[in-house]
């Protein structure tokens, strides 16, 4: 069992932090914000950790929390945009200096035009390689919803890429 006060938490963090930052990066677009999201989750885990019996459940819980953190960041950005403040452009935007190929940029831009849930399902499947059940646990939806969302998301992405090319 791993809890916030558990000595196992630092080891858990070391093992999963890069993967979690990368997962957040897919959704928020820049590494610094992705790191902030993941670190916020671990700060909260220190203060008020859920009691979960095994590491896989904790990982699912943390993944869920990271996705929530990403949603908050994106909501906050909408507000910031309204007040004309600047934030780091996403790695796939034309302004970004990140070393990302043009095809990858195009796919990532199309991905970010999809509805939030479709985007998250695709990232969890095609980046994190999670099965339907784990995606369902992370997003707190039913496995059947994961399957239908995945199907709709792939069709929508195909349309987006077709329209873009």
């Amino acid at each position: 069992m791993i809890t916030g006060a558990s000595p196992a938490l630092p080891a858990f963090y070391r093992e999963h932090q890069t993967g979690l930052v990368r997962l957040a990066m897919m959704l928020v677009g820049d590494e610094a914000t992705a790191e902030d999201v993941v670190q916020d989750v671990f700060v909260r885990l220190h203060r008020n950790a859920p009691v979960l019996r095994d590491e896989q459940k904790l990982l699912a819980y943390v993944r869920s929390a990271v996705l929530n953190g990403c949603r908050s960041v994106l909501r906050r950005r909408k507000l910031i945009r309204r007040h004309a403040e600047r934030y780091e452009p996403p790695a796939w935007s034309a302004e970004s200096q990140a070393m990302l190929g043009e095809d990858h940029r195009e796919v990532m831009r199309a991905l970010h035009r999809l509805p939030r849930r479709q985007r998250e399902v695709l990232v969890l499947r095609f980046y994190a390689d999670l099965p339907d059940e784990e995606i369902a646990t992370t997003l707190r939806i039913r496995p059947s919803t994961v399957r239908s969302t995945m199907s709709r998301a792939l069709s929508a992405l195909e349309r987006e890429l077709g329209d873009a090319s």
Partner: protein
Amino acid sequence: MNVEDRLKAALHGTAGLVEDRPRPLPTAARRRRIPRFVPVWAALIVALVMLGPFVLPDGESNAPIPMSSPSLAIGSAPEIYVAIYGATKERKSRFEIRSTATGELRQVNEAGNGESFVSIAAIPDDGKEGISSFYLLTRLGAGTLPGCTKYTVYGLQISADAGFSSWGGSTVTFEAVDGTPANLATTPKGDEIAYSFEGCGRKVIEGDTERYVGGVGVPGVPLFAHHWAGATTTWNAGGKVLNLAYSPDGHSLAMFRLRDAEAGREAQRELLLMRTANPDDTTTLLRWTEESGIRKDGAVRRPINAMISPDGKKVVVVFSGPDGSGTRLSVAERPIGGKGLSFREPLTPVVDHPVDGPVLVKQHPSGPELLLQAGATTLFHGGKIKAVIPSIEETPADIAW
């Protein structure tokens, strides 16, 4: 390259921009924060400086100082309860996790497309530390035969702080007449499950004999099922099932039913205690005719719900009234003795409360308390204590804690 391969390559390319390097584990506040509240604070401070001398009281405040934060627990009741709601035109079916003490909403989860939640039962002794477990009777959609609808019972786990919930597997799946499955019950360990429904079998005539295939039973006949060790047994309920509850050891199942009228006998409300190993071995704990009830302040109050207490030692009866007006809720209790109760025996209500709709009764899994849902108001009943949890303005289909 198809869209899936392109997506996978793009995601891994983007992930590759994040270097795999050690990052310190945070122990305090986060490193960077967008100063979104700075303008608000600045405005407040300026307003306070400008207007302070005019609006601030010059004496000591008379307002009471809270001595401590309110407790989140009532009696030995769990800190949270779960209320489920059917689908409406505006909203999908959902379950809500709320604080028992305050009714505060902790979490909402909506059902998937085409699914809806029907009934819920708590599993208090599932052996999972810091987790509250439940079974959730869920309508899945069209069944395999015309007139049949598929239902399943899912597991559900909720963390101690009610901040995290996860789905377990499906324990039992069955087909029934749409809208009839109800009254989900389980044992404290969750190893037995009972529910009521109406079968949707299709009649097949072969020679002189007729039988029903597909969904269990004759359409329109009330049934109840007992699921244990991977096997489900089904019996005729003999009338509409109004409530189901297990005894703590799981050896008995209490059923409150509206027994069908028969020739020479009017319909009756009955609380039966059946041995799960053999439901024909039954004790009638109480029985009322449809017209009888208890008399209080000169008016008759009729029994609308009944069950055995969580410890299996008492019968709990809920009365509406007076005279069926549905404006008050009375709860009476009686120890379970060797003989059953009849409507002629007097019962003194220990709770008397105004209500605004139908009443649901749920057992506290490990204490003497009851959770009552009277219309849109959730009530807590522990002995003579009565606490009203704030109205949530919508009547749930079922509740559990």
